[in-house]
């Protein structure tokens, strides 16, 4: 066990996967000697060589498009896009080929590739550096979307994603990159993709979130237990698509109440999808309308005011109290 930041944990996962399988390679801008703009790939090029950790030209569509070809050829590329806002440059290749090639070729070609990219706000960056557009990829048939929330699950989910034969969009909450340390096993550890994690069992209300928003959610849950005697079940989604509807349903059938938190935009966001599913699977168990706290439907604001855009624990506490007391 070592106490690692998320950046270090992700680095560990990639290092071990590259050591385990010579077909695992990395492509991205400035990921080699520079170790990536967040240093997530630090020293990987030194350890595994320039053939396997490839600095690319500055063209996101080109990176994803060529990684697709390499994956068809039996290589397992892990792509880094510097910021998720730049992933839109690669939308073409993600939509036309990455998501569809297996289907188009009826499984003759598979794309065992991972598109890693830091997402979300909270680091006081310029425009296009703080987006949470995971809903785009969840809306795209053929992709899987994974979003870890802590060093340990980031490491285990990234290692599992690299071993998957289906293409994965792996969103890394950059606000968590260096926010805290967590014990991470030295030996390789995997987590199953497609499974939500019940972080804290509870009986009064189900709180669902993922990624960077898990931190304010945890704070809120602790406050509520201590100060208001409200016992919240907290679920970390971890995989956005395919969604673990079963775990969510069981929890809400038990608690009858639900609040969902994410920083992505509200309209057609992940919370909308969760509410629709719970409407189908747990309607008669509901004691109150499901509440969502999300990013607003505006472009992510510039950093002088970004703190007011992101959901905070106090707001989550209030939403939970309101939903708990609804009758």
């Amino acid at each position, binding site marked *: 066990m070592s106490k690692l930041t998320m950046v270090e944990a992700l680095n560990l996962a990639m290092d071990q996967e590259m050591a385990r399988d010579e077909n695992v390679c990395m492509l991205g801008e400035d990921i080699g000697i520079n170790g990536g703009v967040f240093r997530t790939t630090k020293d990987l090029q030194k350890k595994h060589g320039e053939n396997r950790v490839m600095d690319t030209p500055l063209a996101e569509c080109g990176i994803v498009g060529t990684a697709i070809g390499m994956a*068809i050829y039996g290589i397992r590329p892990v792509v880094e896009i510097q910021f998720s806002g730049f992933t839109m440059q690669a939308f073409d290749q993600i939509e036309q080929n990455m998501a569809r090639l297996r289907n188009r070729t009826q499984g003759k070609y598979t794309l065992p590739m991972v598109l890693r990219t830091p997402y979300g706000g909270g680091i006081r960056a310029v425009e296009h550096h703080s987006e949470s557009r995971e809903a785009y990829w969840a809306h795209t048939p053929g992709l899987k979307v994974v979003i870890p929330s802590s060093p340990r699950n980031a490491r285990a989910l990234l290692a599992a994603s690299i071993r998957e034969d289906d293409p994965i969009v792996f969103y890394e909450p950059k606000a968590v990159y260096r926010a805290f340390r967590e014990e991470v096993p030295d030996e390789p550890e995997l987590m199953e993709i497609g499974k939500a994690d019940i972080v804290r069992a509870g009986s009064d209300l189900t709180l669902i979130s993922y990624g960077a928003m898990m931190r304010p959610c945890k704070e809120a849950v602790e406050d509520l237990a201590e100060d208001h005697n409200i016992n919240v079940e907290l679920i970390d989604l971890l995989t956005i698509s395919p969604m673990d509807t079963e775990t969510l349903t069981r929890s809400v059938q038990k608690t009858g109440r639900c609040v969902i938190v994410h920083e992505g935009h509200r309209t057609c966001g992940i919370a909308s999808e969760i509410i629709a599913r719970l409407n189908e699977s747990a309607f008669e168990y509901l004691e109150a309308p499901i509440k969502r706290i999300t990013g607003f439907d505006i472009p992510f604001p510039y950093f002088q005011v970004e703190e007011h855009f992101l959901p905070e624990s106090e707001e989550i506490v209030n939403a939970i109290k309101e939903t708990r007391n609804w009758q």
Partner: protein
Amino acid sequence: MASHHQDKTKSSPGDEVIPPSTPSEMNTSPIDLGHIEVMQILNEHGEVDQGLEPSLSDERLLEVYRAMILARTFDQRMLTMQRQGRMGTFAPNTGQEACTVGQVVPLTKDDWYSPSYRSFGAQIMRGWPMEHLMRLWAGFHDGFPPPENVNDLPFSIVIGSHVLPAVGLGMGMNYKKKNDCVVVNFGDGASSQGAVSEALNFAAVYKAPVVFVCENNGWAISTPTAKQTANEVIAARGVAYGIPSIRVDGNDILAMVFAVDEAAKRARNGDGPTFIEAITYRMSLHTTADDPTVYRDEQEVLPWGKRCPITRFEIYLKNKNLLTNDSIQEITESCEQEVIAARDKFYSMPSANPGEIFDHLYEIMPEELSQQRDEYRKRLDDKGVDYE
């Protein structure tokens, strides 16, 4: 791989600085890219430049000739079937047979080919059964996957979106230290796509073993090349990215084979990509849903009839005593029979299975999708539709 790339990162920053010219010796006008000549080995009268004749055996020459006849026969049969309402919309290839077939003649089975949607002459030569291609164009899911043991990509419908993955295949060959190559086919219209420019750049930077064949047939649906690009020498695009580039008479099968063969050898030898602009002409429709008389003066088409790639190759083969009028007749008839047999096989193949549309998206079907499939099956049951 990418030794060129590695050298770059290791050289010290000052090494490659070019000293500025002094004003008196400097051309202060912006550079105009010079004319790039079009290579021709076999002219439209069937006369050959013997110094450049590719070294193909007599048997191989006849195979290539037959592949061109087969491509045209298939094309005409497909058009008939489409007009009979028994085929979907497709993109005819008539007049482009030398270009289409020539680009795969030098390839081995270990090489990869990434076609565009007008490349079926090449696909047939690569081993796609014609009834398989008919399935594809008639809207069957099982028509799209390349057949077993054929190292081809399926073509992409979105113009130019296959070129980056084709370069990735080449990068994969470097990664696995294979001495094979990739030929990727696209058109003059695709050359305008940003992704194609990115593909050229990646191939050059990583010295990927890729042969870019830009089949410039003059028209992207109704847009002539002159409106597609201000520099109608599309090969200049390759030059700009540091890729050896050449223009070739795309209606000259010998020039096509020569250029692709040279490029493939360079690629397999670790010398990186080549850009070939093949000048040809879309004699026929963009697709069967297109009416070129709306936007194109038919007078423009006429001279291209005289540049027919098949006619000039016939003259050449006759001069080599490899063909006679009788053997032409025999080959034409046997191609016709082969296409008819493929057509009949296609007609006798099973109807589409509506049950399979969920089956190939993921390796293991997610629960949510499995539930949607059940919902869909119920819909089929309610309508009384057969499926497996």
